[in-house]
């Protein structure tokens, strides 16, 4: 493939050099025509709030935006499953010309009566922002009648990046937080921010905290419930996993309610242990730390033998990763290193300057680091860096497979829980299953040296 980096994107790709950190141009709008892997502002707001299972999620706009986000994340619920239906005001030409407020109000009233949600979120899409529907006014009117919070989430697709959508979602959550009764919240308590219970991951993490004697007041937003979110201000500490999406909320809760926050990750055994210990440090009884130590010791000894076996099989393999936020990238670099796999290509959709500096610091010499990359760049670097296993989401998958390279889904659609100690083991099994599969030996990429079948020179 003849490939040259777009001029506009040259400052968004660097090769890691131990002698100094190279500045990476980031946190800006995607280059037009580049085929970015990013979605839009609306998507950012939608994915964050999506797992709240007893709320109505109504997308105000033409049908596509709702159709594409129907049951899109593997965010599980232990009870209601309202989040798994797709509701759209399905605006037509008539609404575009005459306004969609009437249709929005009728939709809200019908769906709330039908499904009895504990709250409703109304997402604005591009054209709502253009035609000027007064979504907050409609929400207020309906809220007054139906007696549940009806919250506008105005993150029209063109408004900015996915990050701006995260901010809008955090704003929506803040309107709920502080409205519930916190009298029964225990002193040793946390909120878990930025875990979305994909494949049941929140349940794994919640179980750890319960064992440590720490109450999880709310998970934002995995297996989310409106009434839990309402009392989130009663927690002692905010434990932030997906820092990219949830840092604005953690900061706002610190300002408004004086709740400190720590940024952690539950991907990989090192990061999981670190997350539990640092949480315990914030609790004021020594028993929490004792229990954390016992838990970590037990779990590590449980998973370590098989992790070691995986490491043996994976020795010398090379990984590439392209994920949404930088904090997941840091964790993955560490988790892969634990498995003896070196990361030779790393990138994110939404990383910031400081985050890229940290990413360069955790990565090895010569790792290619990319911001808001595109399929042609990825394909080119996968081959150039001789990657054995690529870690990303649905849109990255066919690029790897097309080239005969292993792939591991670490995005919304994964069906296997990858968080916590058992998740670290599941991740190792996943990486091993794909990186060491015998099928790759049949692929042209690995057979280049051998003469192709039936192909005469």
């Amino acid at each position: 493939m003849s490939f040259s980096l777009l001029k506009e994107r040259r400052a968004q790709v660097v090769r890691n050099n131990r002698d100094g950190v190279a500045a990476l141009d980031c946190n800006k709008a995607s280059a037009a025509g580049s085929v970015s892997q990013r979605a839009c502002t609306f998507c950012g707001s939608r994915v964050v709030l999506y797992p709240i299972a007893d709320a109505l999620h109504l997308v105000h706009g033409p049908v596509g935006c709702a159709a594409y986000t129907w049951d899109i994340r593997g965010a599980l619920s232990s009870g209601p499953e309202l989040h798994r239906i797709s509701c759209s005001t399905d605006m037509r030409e008539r609404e575009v010309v005459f306004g969609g407020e009437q249709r929005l109000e009728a939709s809200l009233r019908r769906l709330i009566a039908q499904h009895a949600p504990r709250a409703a979120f109304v997402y604005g899409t591009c054209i709502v922002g253009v035609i000027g529907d007064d979504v907050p006014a409609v929400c207020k009117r309906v809220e007054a009648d139906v007696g549940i919070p009806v919250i506008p989430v105005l993150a029209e697709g063109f408004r900015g990046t996915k990050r701006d959508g995260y901010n809008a979602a955090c704003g929506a959550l803040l309107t709920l937080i502080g409205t519930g009764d916190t009298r029964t919240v225990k002193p040793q308590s946390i909120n878990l921010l930025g875990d979305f219970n994909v494949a049941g991951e929140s349940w794994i993490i919640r179980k750890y905290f319960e064992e440590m004697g720490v109450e999880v007041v709310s998970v934002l937003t995995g297996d989310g419930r409106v009434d839990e979110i309402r009392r989130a201000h009663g927690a002692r500490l905010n434990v932030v996993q997906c820092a990219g999406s949830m840092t604005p909320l953690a900061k706002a809760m610190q300002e408004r309610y004086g709740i400190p926050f720590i940024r952690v990750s539950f991907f990989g055994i090192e990061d999981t242990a670190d997350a539990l210990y640092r949480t315990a440090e914030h609790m004021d009884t020594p028993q929490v730390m004792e229990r954390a130590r016992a838990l970590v010791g037990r779990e590590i000894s449980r998973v370590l033998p098989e992790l070691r076996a995986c490491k043996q099989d994976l020795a010398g393999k090379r990984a590439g990763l392209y994920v949404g936020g930088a904090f997941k990238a840091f964790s993955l670099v560490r988790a892969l290193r634990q498995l003896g796999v070196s990361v030779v290509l790393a990138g994110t959709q939404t990383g910031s300057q400081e985050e890229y500096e940290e990413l360069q610091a955790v990565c090895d010499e010569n790792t290619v680091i990319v911001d808001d990359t595109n399929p042609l760049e990825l394909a080119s670097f996968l081959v150039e860096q001789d990657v054995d296993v690529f870690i990303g989401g649905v849109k990255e998958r066919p690029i790897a497979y097309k080239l005969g390279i292993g792939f591991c889904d670490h995005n919304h659609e994964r069906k296997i829980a990858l968080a916590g100690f058992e998740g670290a083991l599941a991740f190792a099994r996943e990486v091993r299953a794909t990186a060491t599969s015998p099928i790759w030996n049949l692929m042209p990429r690995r057979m280049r040296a051998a003469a192709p079948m039936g192909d005469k020179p």
Partner: protein
Amino acid sequence: MSCALARDTAPTVHSSAKPDATVNPCTLCAPLGAALATAGVRGAIPLLHGAQGCATYIRRYLISHFREPMDVASSSFGEAQTVFGGEDNLGRALDNVLAQYHPELVTVATTCLAETIGDDVPLLLTRYRARTGSAPPLVHAATPSYKDGHVEGFHAMVYALVKALACNKGTPLRAVNLLPPLLSPADLRHLREIVAGFDVAATVLPDYADRMDGVILDQYRALPDGGTRLVDIASMPRALGSIDLTLTGRAPRASHLLAERGAPARVLGLPIGVRATDAMIETLADLTGAGRPAWLLGERGRLLDAYADGHKCVFGARVGLYGDPEFVAALAGFLLEIGARPVFCATGARNRALPEALAALPAGSVDEVLDDTDFESIGAACERHKPDLLMGSSKGYRLAHSLNIPLLRVGFPIHDRLGAGRILHVGYRGTTRLFDELVNALLQRQQDASPVGFSYL
């Protein structure tokens, strides 16, 4: 199962364009269809004029179905473009697409946003061409999703391609034009094979068989091989005729445009079932003057033989059909031909094509038609008609699961099974496969329901 006797009453047609929300849409959005149709032209790349998310959601969706790379560029609107117009971004997007992909053709489909702010895309493209001089053909289709879904977007792009490119009026060619709806790569290959059986060249538009069901690669291709060549599209008016397998409803037909330019149009339904496939074979024999190939007659005979072997299993079976109009109409014909009963026929398309097509069936063939509908309404139709089985896309999975009835996956999108691109629906061969699957799904149900099971059919 109840008796399959046809009733002599006309079916109820429910157009569920509701006064309020659409719940669980039975359609995707118009630019998706336009993007996929573009992939059916060699060296072509689609560009969506609007915000970044539309292109990304559509890519993710098409990748989930086809499991192939699918690059869709975007002009990546921000707030400035929304206010002042998207000309600059469209220009930069085209520059970058040409620089990265070196395409032979770029199609520009509009999103809701670009349509709502009123960008005059044909004018912008003319100005771009005047400015740059050397750009490849740029074909525009208007695809606002507040009007249309993926079906109409697909037809709109095929029409735009024919209108812009099929202009060669020279001497007649021994070729047949084939205008398929959104089919699987396996279908497109089989249609080519059938036409080749009559010793004529086939110009299939669009033909994404090789691009959306490609081989493993050693070196990545920016634009995968495959697709109909521009030179062949140009010559379409010189063909012996066009076989049009689409149902465009109120929208204009590409085949009629080709007829005005010289190639007579034959409008048929999808060749699913003996009679519908016979109609296509007869048309081909008529257009080409060639005899029916022996292998096709063999496949026809084997299909009838399969019908004889399995007819009792499907007699009176109550089947709920949903999906794109062409599929639903053709499957209804197939079910009637084998003694099963299409209890309802549903589509999310908005072009009125389905009720029109079903009106051609004998009175009483179908109990109910749901046009411009969603899965909330299809669920209600299931309550009314108690189907034994559903046939349609993956979108009906949760419904089938909740009703505890089998779902036979056909059409688009199929994202919860492997091999969507390899599903053959058309011709005697495709019908034989569908018939076997239908019989076996019903047998499986009987086996599962039996306390003792059975070992022989």
